[in-house]
């Protein structure tokens, strides 16, 4: 077991697999998976991760709503969040930032790009 404790929230199983593979490549293999915001909130009872990777477009509770909910909870207020999505316009970037995410990464991304972003929001202690 190495790397950060990461919660990965994405409704697509294939996507989660790809993302997990990317994370493994850059040395993170403690990944909890959730299929949407509701599922993720339920799984959070097992403890706070070091980082959230969250897709935007998901059924039931989308990424923005989930991030908003996290930021409203004292326990997860300061856990870094990266949104993995496809944002193109300034409006969308603003929406992501306003919801409370620390950063975003456009799909598709390389493991290196992901590593860079993670390093940015989770500075080594």
């Amino acid at each position, binding site marked *: 077991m190495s790397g950060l404790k990461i919660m990965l929230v994405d*409704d*697509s*199983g*294939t*996507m989660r*697999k*790809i993302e997990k*593979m990317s994370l493994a490549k850059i040395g993170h293999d403690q990944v909890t998976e959730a299929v949407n915001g509701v599922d993720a909130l339920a799984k959070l009872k097992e403890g706070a991760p070091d980082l959230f990777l969250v897709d935007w*477009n*998901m*059924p039931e509770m989308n990424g923005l709503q989930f991030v908003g909910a996290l930021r409203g909870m004292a326990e997860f207020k300061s856990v870094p969040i990266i949104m993995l*999505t*496809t944002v193109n316009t*300034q409006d969308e*970037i*603003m929406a992501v*930032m306003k919801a409370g995410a620390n*950063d*975003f990464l*456009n*799909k*598709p991304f*390389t493991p*290196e790009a992901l590593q860079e972003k993670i390093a940015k929001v989770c500075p080594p202690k």
Partner: protein
Amino acid sequence: MNTGAPDSIESLNLNDLATLLVRCDLTSTDDSKQLRESLNVALAKASELPRVREALESATHHLDNIVSGAASDPAAVFSEIGRLIETAIEESEGMIAPAGNITAAIPNPPPPSAAVPPTKPDPAESQSPSAVEQLPADADAGLMGEFVTEGYEYIEGAEAALLSLETNPDDMEAVNTVFRAFHTIKGTSAFLGLVAISELAHRAESLLGRVRDREIRFTGGYADLALRAVDILKALLQAIQEALGGEPLRRPEGYGELFGLLENPEAAGISSETVPEPITPLRVGDILVAEGKARRDEIEMVAVDQGEQPIGMAIIKSETASLTDVAHALRTQQQIASTDRAVDSSMRVRTDRLDRLIDMVGELVIAQSMVAQDSTVITGGHHGLAKKVGHTGKIVRELQDLSMSMRMVPFKGAFQKMARLTRDLAHKNGKQVDLITEGEDTEIDRNMVDVLNDPLVHMVRNAVDHGIEPPDSRREAGKSPVGVLRLAAYHAGGNVVVELSDDGRGLNREKIIKKAVATGVIESDKGMSDREVFNLIFRPGFSTVEQVTDVSGRGVGMDVVKRGIDALRGRVEIDSQPGRGCTFTIRLPLTMAITDGMLVRVGLQRFIIPTVNIHLSFQPVAGALSTIAGRGEMVMLRDELMPVFRLHRLFGIQDAIEDATRGLLVVIGDGDRRCALLVDELLGQQQVVAKSLGGGIGNVPGVSGGAILGDGRVGLIIDAPGVTALARQLATSGAEYVTGACSLA
């Protein structure tokens, strides 16, 4: 195939830079340092783009000034940096777009892996990528297989949603399902380097995005495009599956065409109106067979095994016909069904002729009742004649109903205008409002719809502008950020009722009272019920909004609403709960052509009081009556004190009942304007055709018109709001009741 050059903006990290800037804390040296570093990186990358470089250099300079403390107003300089970065973004977009080869000049190409596809198709290639390509060299077969399986699942969900959209194009939940399917397929396939599928999914997603944002409706040509996209995506998934087995990866037939159409549907003449020609058979299967899309024996096989699911779904699953074909068939079926229902042909008739016909029929009704009430018929002992007259009466009433129905129209049109208005207003105000309409099929006299339009517009504006709060305030109040406006119409007690309710902040009693006292409308709110207070907003010139918005307002208050509804001989009531919302209830007569009235007698005169204005009538006990100094005669009814107006004094009629306890009090008016009219007796309910009094007599206060009664004599129709206003005016001016205000034999 271009596997290299990425989107230039992305490689310049300018968007990241902008993001960094948004989050940057001015006082933190760490943040400034990070920003400075990012600027340096961008500068190095922008070496080939002079204008971008220029803007970035300037931004760097400004940043240095802030860090060194040389800037006198850091906040202003900071926003200047933001502007410069934006300029850099615009410049880089402008530089790259027309000349694709500049991208090559930008250093820092991504790792040469086919797994990273270009975000834009290479301009050197044709509109659609070439017909045959290879699976990416480093493709992970397991992952690909998983993607295909999952892709099918999303497609299946999208198919079900698309079919339900065929019958209900405004089902936003279904639109979201389809959108998400396209979106997810796009994202995953991009990772896997499946350019063809991710590009198509991207364009299909954009189309659905426009539907979701209500820019276009999911009907006609747009629906066709989405259906075709699903079909092609399905074929693409199948092609990938085959390619995993070693076959070349082929683009399905029609890919290129669809790809082009999706880029700019409007340019190809696609709109929400384009619909295929309908044909005759009725079952979905029959339609498919008739169109040559499926074989009859196949359809029958499917029908046998269909089980619980709808036949359309079963046909798609069994691959007897494609989704596009089934959806078309469903649409055709609907068209036929709807034309079947309204199969009767129609013709246009001029409205003035129709109006005249209805007037004439009204006259006929009255003439007939005159015959029926003639003493020869009633008491003459001519049984045969009475029977014939009775029969004629039945026909005449049917004729009346029929002619009235010709001029009745559903509320649908009026409601749709409000839906549009709500959307526009909400958008302008930065609010989110859902309009729910109920009872769109409720019918009302055509002539009234037009008059009703103005009050409705005003009420909707009022509700969206002032009633429903901005999303933030709503959230704070624990409500959904999306406000709900409900517009409903229904028939009740011979009237048409229109209700408009919102779930906004409700009316503010204190504010209304303050304003009313300030403008001298009332002296104090002592003893006023909520409803009485709320009704004050209908007073001319009354508006509690200090700031007049450009959307509603204009300073005029809700008196426009009141006037419009009075003109229709209707009445309006308000219910409001603070923080919970406000409901306006409008009651209108079914038609203006015929007035449902209560015939009352005052002395030897008879008057008609429109039923819609009457709350109740009662015979008062002596103790309930009192005379209050300065306010005249009052009566107490169920703890409510209201003025009593004596019709005989108002109209100067002799020999009427003076003692109120022997007569009847009829309660009319709304809210604080409620009053009781003293009459001798009620003679019964009667429908009358309202006539104007004619130019010779002109406008008589308190009287809205006249009507010919069953015995051939004229009865005056009481104008309820007018008569109360008149009585109040006389009472407060202290003048004696005018005698002979109106006398008609």
